[in-house]
């Protein structure tokens, strides 16, 4: 089985027709499903949060079989993820896409777990500390996309689990937990 680093690529990735958008509806549906799963899987294991459609992304081409996804195909697969709520376009031109391999709610749950595991129920931290502090190492939160983190925190804020406030430095915010 072909690998990309540590990641095991599924068999369809080596079958040339899967790199061409299929015209027949049923076949296309199957194709889109396979690609959606692959993109989510890969991004999750590699902790990739944003994809640029015009950039060199390893999944977009397979040099072994000499095939590359057309821009149209890339957009089709990512749009399917967007429709499902597993991705968001960052721009109207659909050039960049944020991948929600965890839904925002899942991230919120992750944060709560992080708080409980470390006894932070009444603590104060900066947003940056949540995503890159010592305690975050080895957890999924480490290196999380900032925008996604803030969104998850806002959900928890609405539930009264924490309060977000502006910090001392211009570009960092703080969080007071009350879990």
């Amino acid at each position: 089985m072909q690998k990309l680093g540590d990641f095991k690529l599924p068999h369809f990735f080596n079958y040339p027709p899967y790199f061409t958008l299929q015209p027949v509806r049923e076949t296309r549906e199957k194709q889109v499903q396979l690609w959606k799963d692959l993109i989510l899987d890969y991004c999750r294991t590699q902790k990739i949060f944003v994809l640029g459609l015009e950039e060199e992304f390893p999944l977009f081409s397979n040099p072994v079989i000499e095939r590359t996804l057309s821009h149209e195909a890339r957009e089709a697969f990512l749009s399917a993820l967007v429709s499902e709520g597993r991705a968001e376009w960052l721009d109207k031109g659909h050039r960049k896409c944020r991948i929600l391999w965890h839904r925002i709610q899942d991230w919120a749950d992750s944060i709560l777990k992080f708080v409980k595991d470390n006894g932070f129920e009444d603590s104060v931290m900066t947003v940056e500390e949540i995503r890159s502090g010592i305690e975050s190492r080895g957890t999924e939160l480490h290196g999380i996309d900032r925008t996604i983190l803030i969104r998850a925190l806002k959900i928890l804020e609405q539930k009264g689990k924490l309060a977000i406030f502006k910090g001392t430095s211009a570009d960092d915010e703080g969080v007071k937990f009350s879990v």
Partner: protein
Amino acid sequence: MRRRPGIGGLQTAAAARDQYRLLGENVAKLRTDLMKEQLATFRSQLEEFARKHKNDIRKNPAFRSQFHEMCAKVGVDPLASNKGFWAELLGIGDFYYELGVQIVEICLSTRPLNGGLIDLQELCKLLRQKRKHDREAVSEDDCLRAISKLKTLGSGFEVISAGKKKLVRSVPTELKKDHNEILELAQAQGYVTVDEVERRLSWTHGRAIDALDTLLDEGLAMIDDGHSDGKRRYWFPCVSSISSFGADS
């Protein structure tokens, strides 16, 4: 008998013919009886054989295949009914029933990828993987028998030949001769181009496109526009090994 003239002679001749006829019938009946007896002996010997070699029949696909042939020669079908001597003795009915169910499962699960047509060898390979932990080995012959049983159940299963390969069809799609020929052509590299079809089969452009489009619509073919030579290729998952799509230049 000496021939006598006159009516008396005719009556005697008629009586003689009747007697010969009766004798002939008796001989025929004797022969049939003898044969029936021989057949009955052979059948009971076959049963004895089956009893003795039950394990070999269960475990050894080659042995099992030869056993089936022997049975066929004697007019015995161990699979004819799930009850009765054979089924009980060998549990063979259950074995093929189980195989049939597993084959249906595999065909259904691979249908989205190959349109309902799968290479027999590929099917057997997937079957063996599925049955990894079972003690009974499975041969292509076993698969074919299980499929023919499925067929009598009217489940739409059929084995078709395309070139050197046997393909198992699990959808009601009727494959016309034209489609079959394309499948045969596709076996060399896993795909065909329109040019190739026209050239190798001596078809018009229209005929080639027609057949390929139908195969595409039925989900048996997929298009590939990614080759550097710019020619569209039609790939056929059913002639490839689904479990390991190979690279192609």
